[in-house]
């Protein structure tokens, strides 16, 4: 094969490789989130109530414990699940129960949910139950929001700040 043809062949091979790298290094584009939609993100970490209250050990129970582990109070560490409900314009966006973290289910409950919604004016109600009660909620907040396409609206929760926190741009 003449030298010129070999050289041309090499150039073609390098061009093909360059095209492969040049194209796939940032193409084709990928649509992660519909640009016509806004996104509501419910994200917080919250320690719910313990499942059982502390109680005093009886003398017999204390005596049954190993001498170096004797204590007067029994405080089970397990916490109750956190139930969260988000309503938008009367419709349910989220209605879910979350277990506490940890092998003994004694850690905080971590919640991280993203919900795409149509932009515009909306009425939001956020409710949370973190106690043993069977019905109703321990916390409830509502807000009127106006969302734009691609906007990220965050629903946070801080017990020390009396409940739900809403972020708006």
């Amino acid at each position, binding site marked *: 094969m003449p030298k010129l043809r070999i050289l041309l062949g090499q150039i073609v091979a390098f061009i093909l490789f360059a095209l492969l790298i040049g194209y*796939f290094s940032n193409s084709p584009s990928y649509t992660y989130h519909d640009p016509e939609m806004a996104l509501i993100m419910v994200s917080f970490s919250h320690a719910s109530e313990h499942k059982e209250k502390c109680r005093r050990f009886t003398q017999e129970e204390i005596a049954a414990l190993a001498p170096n582990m004797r204590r007067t109070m029994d405080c089970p560490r397990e916490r109750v699940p956190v139930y969260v409900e988000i309503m938008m314009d009367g419709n349910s966006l989220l209605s879910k129960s979350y277990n506490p973290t940890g092998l003994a289910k004694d850690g905080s409950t971590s919640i991280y949910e993203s919900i795409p919604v149509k932009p515009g004016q909306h009425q939001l109600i956020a409710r949370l139950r973190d106690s043993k009660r069977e019905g109703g909620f321990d916390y409830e907040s509502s807000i009127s929001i106006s969302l734009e396409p691609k906007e990220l609206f965050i629903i946070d929760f801080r017990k020390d700040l009396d409940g739900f926190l809403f972020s708006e741009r």
Partner: protein
Amino acid sequence: MSALKKILRTGFEHVEDWFDVVFGAKWNPLYQLGALGWFYYWIVVISGIYLYIFFDTGVTQAYKSLEYLTHEQWYAGGIMRSLHRYASDALVVMMMVHLLREFAMDRFRSVRWFAWVTGVPMLWMVFAAGISGYWMVWDQLAQYIAITTAELFDSLPFFGEAIARNFLTDAKLSGRFFTLMVFMHIALPLFLLFIMWIHIQRHASPKVNPPKGLAVGTFCMLLILSFIKPALSQPPADLSIVPTTVNLDWFYMPLYPLLDNVSGITVWIVLVGATALLMMMPWMPPGKRVPVAVVNLDNCNGCSRCAADCPFGAISMEPRSDGSAYEQEAVVNTSHCTSCGICVASCPTATPFRTKTELSPGIELPENKIKELREKTIAASNKLIGGDRVIVYGCDNSLNPAEMSDTKVGVVTMPCIGMLPPSFIDFVLSRKLADGVFLTGCREGDCSFRLGIKWTDARIAGEREPHIRKRVNQERIGKYWAGLTRSKEFFKELTAFRMRLNKLSPMQTESRNDTKENSEKVDA
């Protein structure tokens, strides 16, 4: 599995045919995948050091410093950034093709498991280093990657609070995040280099540099690509806005779209499962373990040629253990030996001319003894009649030359053509067992046992011990490195070789009776 390998190998060899025409065997990129990977790694490191000088670790400064490099300093920083990106992408391509090719060529089982298994963590290192690099830009792509990666980690039941919460608002993000990213982006490639070094530990004279011409060509390609299509940032990250459409680097992020459609746990199962599967592949099923080379101290003078020629560093020279006057002896590391037999050909005692004492060289393969090779050669020769008789020596890893055995062509195969002592060629020609010797095996530049073809060529050319004797007429030696698929070309070359033999002095006609006599003499 073996059918899949054969299909893949055939496919590779057809592409290699084309590359052989264009680049030649020495520059063929498919024979240089590992070396090209190393070359791209160094480009990434050097360009990365330059970028690091100007990179600012801060929530807003990171993006700005890269914009400065890309636009204000486009002639240096911009080019370096593009080289950094494209060489990283090329590294992924080389790595994946290298993995696939080693699988297709079945060069990962039995004692060759080491390079394969040490290569698997390199996949994780390369991808982790690449992805951490994209975070540092802190544009919308980085925002998407940060959130999605954090969500992937959050799917594991080890973390109390969601890591992804760190990317909810700009206020939650601190400059320390970028310091962490810089640390990771430097530490991971350093660790990768360490694993790369381990990866080649069982290879003697590993190929870590591609041929100069190929290196220059591929570097120019990256440089021109950097000028034509410079690497750019996407719009700056803004945590109050959801990144919608992102331009992924598909070499590093092919799994990210999957994360949006299946649970994180599923992705972890896929990743961990694939890693475990890759790790276990050398034993699925285990490769056939052929008895390894054995040193015969009675015939070993400690010349160290076998240690110098072993492609896998399986032979070491150690102090003599048998009280002999020689200082050293060859010792075979059985866990490294691939039973290729290249060491046998390097041994000066592996000569078929030995008739007075038993033909037992200083080192040999128990299942492929030199004595048997001589017997096979003589047996193959005895079937040949007429003129232009040829003995073909081939290897077990390429096309099966036994199929072409006829009254003109006698075939003898061995694990690797590098196992053929050059004295056998002299033996065949001087004893008039044939009119010519034709060598074949794997493709030039791609010996299944790495150096078999290289050493054979050098020995015949008189450039490496043991040399072929000067009395051997080189015109009576032919060779064609056919691999698995070039049977047509092989026959063409063999026919041409026989025609050339016919034009040489008529050795064959006078030799027929001598041959038998010689054979008997040798047998005796």
